[in-house]
């Protein structure tokens, strides 16, 4: 448990941070809340020669509604996600997910960008952000670019961030009328535990308030990266929102998932829980959609 020595920078500008990051390439690491990074340093999973703390860079945090979109700075704390009124009202699955992350101490330190850049298959905020069609913004040597979040993860612990690129913010469209969403996770302990399965769903109903117009089902911890259960989502569209339909979609989601057996759980159990928690999450989201009209 010895942390190898490194150089430490506190850039004051985004550009400065990015060029320092680019200059040192794979030898550098970005420090946000540090709740993941420090563990990786202690366990010698990462041995960076340079650590760049971006917390002094202005404009990287905050929750704002701009032109029908929610803008979420990368440094926004998990605690702020959990307690923000805008998020609780419009993106309840995101605040629910935030409330499950770590402990109160961790939630004050941890950032949403850090959670996404760590790219853990079980990352708490990934399924809800994907279920809300989040767009992720990055700044690097070639300026700014953006991608849908679902294209951001490339493997466990891996992202498409290029050398010198820093995640700056997320943009989430404010959900349409008659939309409802929910987040559930299954773990052995009530908190301070990695999910066996986590699920975020979002449903948008037609004007008849019965037919499903849009659906998102996003699963965590059951594939190398957080994943859309696309076939299950398709199955729901145009169908009446009934328990039978939900159960069928949940079955499809379970088939689509690619869980592994490890020290935390088994493949079969995880698959069974995908089905159960997808169904439960849909059942929880439906009355919320019906209310929002």
């Amino acid at each position, binding site marked *: 448990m*010895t942390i190898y020595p490194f150089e430490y920078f506190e850039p004051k500008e985004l550009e400065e941070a990015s060029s320092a990051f680019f200059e040192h390439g794979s030898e550098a690491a970005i420090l946000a809340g540090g709740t993941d990074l420090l563990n990786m340093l202690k366990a010698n999973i990462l041995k960076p020669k340079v650590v760049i703390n971006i917390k002094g860079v202005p404009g990287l945090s905050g929750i704002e509604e701009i032109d029908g979109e929610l803008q979420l700075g990368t440094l926004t704390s998990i605690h702020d996600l959990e307690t923000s009124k805008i998020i609780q009202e419009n993106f309840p699955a995101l605040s629910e997910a935030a409330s499950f992350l770590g402990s109160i101490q961790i939630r004050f330190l941890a950032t949403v960008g850090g959670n996404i850049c760590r790219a853990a298959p079980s990352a708490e905020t990934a399924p809800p952000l994907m279920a809300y069609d989040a767009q992720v913004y990055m700044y690097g040597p070639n300026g700014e670019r953006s991608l849908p979040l679902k294209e951001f993860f490339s493997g466990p612990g891996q992202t498409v961030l290029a050398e010198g690129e820093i995640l700056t913010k997320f943009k989430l469209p404010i959900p349409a009328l008659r939309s409802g969403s929910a987040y559930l996770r*299954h773990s*052995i*302990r009530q908190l*301070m535990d990695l999910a066996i399965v986590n699920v975020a769903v979002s449903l948008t109903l037609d004007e008849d308030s019965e037919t499903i117009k849009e659906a998102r089902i996003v699963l965590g911890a059951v594939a190398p990266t957080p994943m859309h259960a696309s076939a299950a989502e398709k199955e729901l569209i145009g169908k009446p929102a009934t328990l039978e339909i939900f159960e069928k979609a949940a079955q499809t989601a379970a088939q689509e998932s690619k869980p592994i057996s490890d*020290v935390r759980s088994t493949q079969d159990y995880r698959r069974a829980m995908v089905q159960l928690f997808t169904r439960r999450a849909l059942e929880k989201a439906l009355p919320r959609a019906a209310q929002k009209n």
Partner: protein
Amino acid sequence: MTTELKVVGKSLPRVDAYAKVTGQAEFTMDVNLPGMLYGKILRSPHPHARIKNIDTSEAEKLNGVLGVITGKDTKDMRYAFVDTPRYPADQYPLAQDKVRYIGDEVAAVAAVNPETAQAALDLIKVEYEILPAVFDPYEAMKPDAPTIHDAEIQGDSIWEEWGAEKTKKSDANEKVNNVSGRTVITYGDPDKAFAESHHIREDRFETAATAHCALEPHAAVAHYDPAGQMHLWLSGMGIYYKRYVLSKVLEMPTSQVRLHKVYIGGAFGGKMDVYPYEICAALLSKKTGRPVKIELTRGEVFTTTRLRFPTYIDIKTGVSKDGKILSQHIRTVVNNGGYRGTGPVVIYLFHGWTAPVYRVKNMRYEGISVWTNIPVGGPQRGHGAPQIRFAIDSQLDMIAEDIGMDPAEMMLKNVRKIGETLPNGDVLNSCGLIDCVTQAVELSDWKEKRGAPGSDRTERKNGSIVRGVGISTTTMISGAPYYPFASAGIVKLHDDGAATLISGVVEMGQGAETTLSQIVAEELGISLDDVRIVAGDTEQSPIDMGSFLSGGATVTGAAIRLAAADAKRQLLEVASERLDAMVEELDISDGIVCVRDRPDRCMSIGDVVNYSVKKTGDPIIGHGSRKILSGTSRYPSLAKGTGRWTDAYGFNAQVAEVEVDTETGQVKLVRATTFHDCGTPLNPQIVAGQVHGCVSTGQGQALMEEIVYDDGRVLNPTFQDYRLPITLDTPETAGTEVESFEPAGPFGAKEVGEGVVAQTLAAIANAVYDAVGVRITTLPITPQKVLAALENQKKPPKNNK
């Protein structure tokens, strides 16, 4: 009961609270000495291998490295917790010819900082010849399995110094590959009693390896001073035991090995043994002439500081028509890992936790401990009790169902009563088992929640959630014969009327400094604020049996009460002269000595002390001591279970109420109703804290805790993957002490805080069965297992029978 108590029996604030909440309490890792070096241990990456060569030259050349030691430096240092003529010590601080588990100590380094020490480890070249390894005890016992300890161990054992017979007794049993210990106990006529039984059941149970999870990782600081004394600050549970073993290993006179006081951040049995890293710190300090600190990482704590023994238990029980246990045949096998640890002890203890609870007149017990290539087993809160109580009380629940009886009622038919003598000669001078069971049943609404045997439970279902209740009982000793076999205390009075207690006790969170100080205050008639304590330092404190074997209250407490009584006697003798009254006429209350019923003839304790000093120079110092099992000279036989063992047993009964989610298989412990017999609770709040701690430990081991291995490698040596309950997971707790008085203990006190852990496991397993009709016999009861069992529920639910 005794006369009204003023300090004992009160929930007074802990005497160490101030130091702890202000961060002043010093733990081993807080000890920093001038010129101190940092040590690290090189460990085996193989479960079983022969060491062909170790090359330390590159490491020694590294800048900042001041000392490197290997097995060559520990050649004559064979030692172990179990070191008897039958079971000679099987371990060395650093491996000699072989390594026997992943994590086995191979070399140690001291350097100017931890980074350099770590870098030096990477430069040590060890040439291994990898040997076939075996991880399962049944596989290990096969004749063609690799033999883990191949050479017969020669030489003396430390138990001989403690009075054990020198001659190695011949073992009547056939020699079996890798068997490290064997206990066989029989009494009555089990076969005949089975033949007379109305109903017989045979079942098998398995428990997992679990970890202690003390918050403070193990650490040691050693400083060998040029004058020849070895100063040590250690994460330990008994300073006199560690001093003794270290003096043997280091070949130093006992009094030249000094353990200094540190607070311990939790131990739960895992800090009792003397560990290689402690010896290495001492050797490296001797070698370099500088203080050396070694702190284990959490990963090292998980793999190299002992685990609860994974255990396999087969029980055959015969009962009469009315639910009396007539005969029992119990077979246990424990996997003790690469070294014995306390394997031969735990197989003895399994029977030890059986005999005091239910009256079984006909018993055959066979226990076997086996060497394999997994990490080593050792004592852990309850030391064997969780495993065996889980098995016995799970089976009792099954038998009760078979014969159509309420399990609580069946327990009441079998539990022992005050005054009974156990097969080994121990006498139950206090035993509140009947009250524990009856009161737990009452307060938990058992009858209503459980319903009559065979009654319908479907109405309990709420969505996917079903509730159920289960019950279990257990026991624990109050101290047992082990070095130094006794405790002593000194109470010295001050001229302002205060007192200082000097004790060898180790405060590791259990509250001993507080409860022992309460005993002194009560005996002297002063307030707790007027008692200070000096503890845990071998140079300053008299001997102490250690804060293990659950003898703190009964043995150390009794010694300290005697010390306080001795001081009081001297005080009253001086006061009687001054107050011109007989000693028998004097009372002490609130620090004032008065002639009974004469408030005009009084003087303060401080004035008496002053007077004594002025007159004779005597400042008044009392001392007292208590030998464990005074009056007996024989130690119990680990192999045969004969011989007395303890002065008093604590008892408990618990009703667990659970919610099972039938869709996830997850079990939630919602309520634990515990009644326990600890005699007089010295400090009820501390007792309650112990019970809460036990419940969460028991709950964790019932539902989630498990060390997972793959070919001898621990896969989950972190708090992320080794899950123990967090506060949110712990249940509502109810219940309290039953009325009881233990004559051997001070003010009637005896064991609490270790036994309670053991009954939570069966109580939960039985509650799960009550809820959903699924019987899990392999711990932990994970959601996967429950869900799979629910799906496999071939037979119709028990309630529809």
